[in-house]
């Protein structure tokens, strides 16, 4: 048994090393329509579950990032800072949606939540293609609590999720240096 576990450990190490060694996608994904599709799907989910009775059986509070964007302030931030905000926020949403999926019982609701979760994962890939570190999978959020707030309902969670994607995530992708080079 110890030999088998040892083999598995070696195997995982090798895979992780291989994973790290994998080169990031060569071509940056700058098409705004990619994110637009995610935004529309998030909005559709929000609309569909707005009329959910008793919050679709979801209880509890969820930590979500702040979504407000001040362009004047944004001008002063650099891409790194923006990227940090986006990635921590995506992480928080991933967590919250995972928790929601466990709570709901209806299959239709589950499939919608699954879709949004997979979109968040895809966004991480997009960010990586723009040479932005994907910190969504990191165990700890890189930003402080000041940049977060709490919500207590599924509809509020989904609304914040939509606003976050429309605002901060989109601005980051629009202003990504990799995409700026392509457009000029």
């Amino acid at each position, binding site marked *: 048994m110890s030999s088998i576990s040892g083999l598995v450990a070696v195997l995982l190490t090798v895979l992780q090393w291989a994973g790290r060694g994998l080169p990031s996608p060569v071509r940056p994904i700058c098409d*705004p329509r990619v994110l*637009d599709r995610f*935004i*529309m799907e998030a909005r559709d989910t929000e609309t569909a579950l707005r009329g959910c009775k008793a919050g679709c059986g979801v209880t509890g509070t969820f930590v979500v990032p*702040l*979504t*407000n*964007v*001040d*362009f*004047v302030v944004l001008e002063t931030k650099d891409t790194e800072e923006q990227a940090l905000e986006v990635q921590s926020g995506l992480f928080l949403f991933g967590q919250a949606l995972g928790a929601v999926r466990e709570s709901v019982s209806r299959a239709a609701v589950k499939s919608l939540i699954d879709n949004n979760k997979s979109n968040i994962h895809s966004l991480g890939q997009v960010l990586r293609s723009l040479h932005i570190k994907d910190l969504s999978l990191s165990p700890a959020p890189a930003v402080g609590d000041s940049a977060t*707030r709490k919500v207590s309902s599924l509809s509020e969670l989904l609304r914040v999720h939509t*606003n*976050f994607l*429309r*605002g*901060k995530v*989109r*601005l980051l992708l*629009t*202003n990504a240096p990799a995409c700026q080079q392509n457009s000029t």
Partner: protein
Amino acid sequence: MTNNNLNKLLVFCVLFCAQKTSIVHGAQALETKVALLLHAEPENPKCFAEGMSDLTCFWEEDEERAGSADQYSFIYTYQNENSSECSVTALPAAGGKRLYFCRLSQTQLFVPLDIRVFRDDLLIHNRSLFIEVVFLLDPPANLTLTSTGMQGQLKASWLPPSLKYMGDSMMYEVSYAMAGSHIGKVEAVQASSELILRGLQSGTKYKVRIRVKLDGISYSGYWSAWTDPVLMETMPGDLDPLIVSLSLIISLVLTLLSLLVLMSHRRFLLKKIWPIIPTPESKFQGLFKVYGGDFQEWLGHSTGGLWLRPTYFYSEEFPAPLEVLSEVSLGPVLPSSALPPKASEALGEEEDEDKKLKRVDPALMEGWRETPQEHWLMDQLRAIHKHPAPWTQSSLLESHDAYVTLNAQNHSVEEPLDDILEETLPLQVLFASGRTSSESRSDLGSVQQSSGSGRLSSQSSFEYPNHTWPSKGPGYTYMAVADSGVSMDYSPMSSNKIDDIGKGVIYTNEYKNEIPAHRRPIGTPIHFAF
């Protein structure tokens, strides 16, 4: 120093004027937007964002109920933040209204904003909105129309509103119509600064205008105002090669068809356009070619042509039987007894004749003598029958009808010619020479001439209005000319009124000429020499 001051003053004036112009422009733009929102937005206060960091809210009040701007307070609160207040300004509006404005210079997007309006601590308006969905942009600038170099196309290009992060979220509507027309088309385009308009008419002036709106995924808002229309004429039309080739083919086919039709009817058309002048050459063989038109020569040399001649004259005439009603008995040769039987025969046949007459062409009837004439004649005949005295010519000739008097002649009648001439001549020839009057000829077309000592003369009764018949010598045979209109002079004493006969006078009741009275073949007087 004075110059410097003047220069400064000048610069100041220019700047002031420019600013004033821009202020005027800005005021006009604001007025337009206010009007747009009053129409499009039902909620109060009506708010719109013009750029990335501003928000303008306003509401309307009637002049009568309106208060001063100080009475109003505009409180706004972002999510998870403290409230803030905006200063209210008032502006007069058309239609007895007043507008109250509040303008924020720094805004947060993608987060809910609560707005509350108080008038003297009384909440009059309450609204929650996202600023990124209430954009009302300025219309695109520098709308230009250019030609693409192709038929029916125009290229429209413009300058997008200068919003840094929203260029790819803008969508445009291009409206184009023919100049002077109100019916136009609209084309939408997204995230672009030019559009090619296709399917336009060649050589036509078009007016184009454009407006802008955010696409609604991340940002949204209201349609901007239309730009001022820009006019441009499309390229002049060019002949479509397909149409030209089709037209050529069709015209070729039509030409061929018309040629075919013309060729198939060429004879008919030739006759119509260039009618052949009829010549009698075919009827007179050799008359023109050999004898040069000398008829007498031709007559002399032709064999049997003399007798054949009348056939050509009257080739279309129908023969008709003729019965002589009466004749003048000038000599013992003419048996008077011939008349009564003739008369009785005529009388007896009178009724039949009437029937036969009625069968005849009504045109003929018109040319006939009136019925009273017949009645008179019949009366005369009856009188004669009753009193069979030798009558004179005069009593007989009181009739208006023309008829024939026969004289005994020493000429011989050439029998064989009868057959030839029977069916052609409309002439009435009554001969009693050497024969009994019963052999009077009833066939039209029997023109007989004698050679030698025979003399023929024809006279019509028209010549003698008094109905007196000149008593000629017994050497004359009178021949009545038929109604066919041919005037033939058979003697020097030819009547001048022979032509009248051609007008279709029908003689006696027994006359069964079927030739229409009005027909008159072309003929020239032919002189016979004996």
